[in-house]
C-alpha cells in the first residue's frame, strides 16, 4: 500500500489508484507492455513511498474539484474540500453516461424471422432499366409476379393449388382513370387491364377483383369492390376494407388470389 502526494492510499505503488499522481520515489513508468501470461492487475514498477500525507507541494496548481479555486494545500481555502480524502463536503462525481449493456444480451423474443411465422411477400427490385430518378409522379407500372412467399403464406396444405413452376413476371403500364385487376370474362364483357386469367391463371382471383384509381396529383389508390377472397397490401394479414380507397406508394405490393403480387412502380 502506498500513499500518493494527495494523500490517497493506493494499491499500485507507481501511480495513485485514485488520482493517477506519480507516487513519490516511484520511477516514471515506461509506456510499457505486459507480456501475455503474466497478469498483473497492479504494477510493481516502483518502491512504495512512505506515507506522506498530502500537503501538496507537488500537487499545488491543481484546481479544486468542488469550487475550482486553485489549490494551496491539503484543504481548499475557499470551500474546505479535503484533497487527501476527496471530500469535506459531497464531491461531485464526474457525470457518467449510462453505459450500453455490454455482455451478451438475453435471448431475443421469438419475433421477426421465425420461420413458423407468416411469410411476408415482397419484391424489392426496380425494373432492370432503372428509370431516371427525377420529375413528378405521372408514369406508373404494375409488376405482376407469381409470388412464392405469398403463396406459402396463404395456401394451406389441404388446398389443391399448385404453384406454377414457370411464371415470368409481367409489367403493365398504368394509364387512364382506372385500371382493373381481375379475370377476363367474354360473357360478362370484363376485360381487366391486369388480367390474371392469363397463364398461369390465378384461381383465387375474382373477375372484378380490385381497381386502381388515378388521382389528380398523379398518385394511385386501390379499391376492392367486394372480391370473394379479398385483397391485402404489403404482407398485411387483414384484407383492405371493401369499397374504401387505399393510397398506394411506389413499391407498395398488392396481393390477390393465391399467388399474385402486384408491385406498383413509379417510372419517373
Amino acid at each position, binding site marked *: 500500500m502506498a500513499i500518493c502526494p494527495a494523500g490517497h492510499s493506493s494499491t499500485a505503488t507507481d501511480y495513485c489508484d485514485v488520482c493517477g499522481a506519480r507516487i513519490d520515489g516511484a520511477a516514471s513508468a515506461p509506456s510499457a*507492455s*505486459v507480456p501475455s501470461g503474466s497478469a498483473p492487475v497492479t504494477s510493481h514498477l516502483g518502491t512504495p513511498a512512505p506515507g506522506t500525507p498530502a500537503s501538496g507541494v507537488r500537487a499545488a496548481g491543481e484546481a479544486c474539484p468542488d469550487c475550482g479555486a486553485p489549490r494551496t494545500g491539503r484543504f481548499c481555502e475557499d470551500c474546505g474540500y479535503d484533497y487527501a480524502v476527496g471530500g469535506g463536503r459531497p464531491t461531485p*462525481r464526474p457525470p457518467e453516461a449510462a453505459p450500453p449493456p455490454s455482455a451478451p444480451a438475453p435471448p431475443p423474443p421469438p419475433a421477426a424471422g421465425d420461420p413458423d411465422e407468416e411469410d411476408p411477400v415482397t419484391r424489392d427490385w*426496380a425494373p432492370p432499366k432503372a428509370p431516371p430518378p427525377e420529375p413528378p409522379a405521372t408514369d406508373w407500372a404494375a409488376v405482376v409476379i407469381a409470388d412464392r412467399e405469398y403463396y406459402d403464406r396463404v395456401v394451406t396444405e389441404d388446398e389443391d393449388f399448385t404453384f406454377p413452376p414457370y411464371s415470368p413476371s409481367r409489367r403493365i403500364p398504368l394509364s387512364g382513370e382506372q385500371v382493373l385487376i381481375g379475370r377476363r370474362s367474354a360473357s360478362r364483357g370484363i376485360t381487366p387491364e391486369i388480367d390474371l386469367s392469363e397463364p398461369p391463371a390465378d384461381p383465387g382471383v375474382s373477375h372484378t377483383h380490385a381497381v386502381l384509381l388515378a388521382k389528380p396529383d398523379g398518385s394511385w389508390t386501390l379499391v376492392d369492390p367486394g372480391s370473394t377472397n379479398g385483397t391485402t397490401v404489403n404482407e398485411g394479414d387483414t384484407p383492405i376494407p371493401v369499397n374504401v380507397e387505399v393510397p398506394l406508394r411506389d413499391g407498395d405490393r398488392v396481393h390477390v388470389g393465391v399467388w399474385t403480387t402486384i408491385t406498383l412502380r413509379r417510372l419517373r
Partner: protein
Amino acid sequence: MSEQPDFSIRIDQNKFLPQGGHEVHAIVTVESAGAPVAATGTGTSAAEVIIIDTSGSMDYPRNKMTSAIKAAQAAVDTLRDGVNFAIVSGSSRATMVYPRAEELIPADAHTRAEAKAALSRLTATGGTAMGAWLTLAGRLFARHPDGIRHAILLTDGKNQHESPEQLDAAVAQAVGRFVCDCRGVGTDWEVAELRKVASALLGSLDMVASPEALEADFRAMTEAAMGKAVADVALRVWTPQYAKLRFVKQVLPSVEDLTGRRADVDERSGDYPLGAWGSESRDYHICVEVPAGEVGREMRAAWVKLMLGDQVVASGNVLAEWTDDEAQSTRINPKVAHYTGQAELAENIQVGLQARKDGDLDTATARLGRAVALAHQSGNEAIASLLGKVVDVDDPATGRVRLRKDVDKADEMSLDTRSTKTVRTRRGEG
C-alpha cells in the same frame, strides 16, 4: 486458453503538457503474435453463419445471385472441420437454407457438400428485412456462446421491409452476440445503413462492385474468421479521479468510434469490446482530459489493459507530465498526428459526399478537397485514387479540386464505403 496468442500493448504519445494543459492524446497499439487456431486445428471453438440476401433484386442482374451462391460455397469450403455453421437466406424474413432445422451443424466433408447443394437451389424472391436476418443469426449463435462467433451478411438492397427502428432494435440485440462482416453488392444498397450494422457488430464493411469478386472476398473473410484465436477481447481503460475520457477510437485498420460502447467496470474503469482477435495489430486513439497539474508533476492519465475475460493479458500507461519547456510540450507525436489526420480524412469524405448529394457544391468541393490533401499527405493511396474518381485534382498538396460531373454511382459508393480505411504511418514517421 493455452492456445491464446501473445498480446502486447505499445503506447505512442508525447506526455509533456504545457502549464495549464489538460488534454492528453495517445495511440495504443495492440498486437498479437502466435499461431492462429486454424493452423493448429485445436483450441477455441468457432461458429459461422453465412447470410445471403435472396430478395428479388438479387436476380437483376442474375449473376448477383449465382455469384453469391458461388461465394457462399467457397466460404463453406473454407470452414475447417468441426466449425459449427449454418446458411441463412434473407428476404422479407430469414429462412434456414442449411441445415433445415434452426441450429448450427459441425462442418465435415458430408455437411459441407450438403450445404453447397442446398445453396445451389436458392432462388431470389421477396424483399429486404435485415433485422430479421440478424435476429435469426443471433438465435443460432445463442447455443454457442463460447468461442469465435462470426457472421457474413451479404445484401444488394436497402432495408425496405422493416422500419429503421426495427433494424436498430435487431442490431442492438445482436451486439456482443456475434461479429458480423457486411458486404454490399451492386449499387442499390445504402452505405450508411450497412455501416451502422457492421460497425455495431464490430465487423468490416465493404462494397463488392462486381459480383464475380464476391467469391474471393467471402473466402478471405472466412479465412480471417478461422484465423481468430480468441473471442471477446476488451480494452479496459482506467482514468483517474476528475479525469474525463473524451474518446476511444479504433484508428487502424479503420476509423471506428468506440466511445459510446463503454461498459463501466467500476468508478474509474470501463471496457470497450474489441471482438475476436487473431494474429493481427490494431491501433486505438484515446484522448483524456485531466485536471491541469503543476510543472514537474507526472501522473498516469490512463491505464490501458487488454482483457481476456477477467485476465489482463497486456497493459500500458498513458502519462501526463507538465513542463515549462516549450520545445517538449509543443512537440506532437507523429502517430497521434497521423491518425488525427486519418480520422479527419474519413469525416471530410463522408460530409463531402453528403453535401454533393444535397446539392451543396461549395461544401462538397471544400470537404473533398481537404480530403484529397489529407490523403496525399498521409500516403493513403487507396483513398487518393478513389477520390480521383469523384473530383478532378488540380493540386493534391493544397487540395484544390473540381467536382466531376460524370461520377459513376459505384465509384461514389466505394469511396463512401472505404472512407474509414486507414493506413499506418509512413516509414520513419512513427
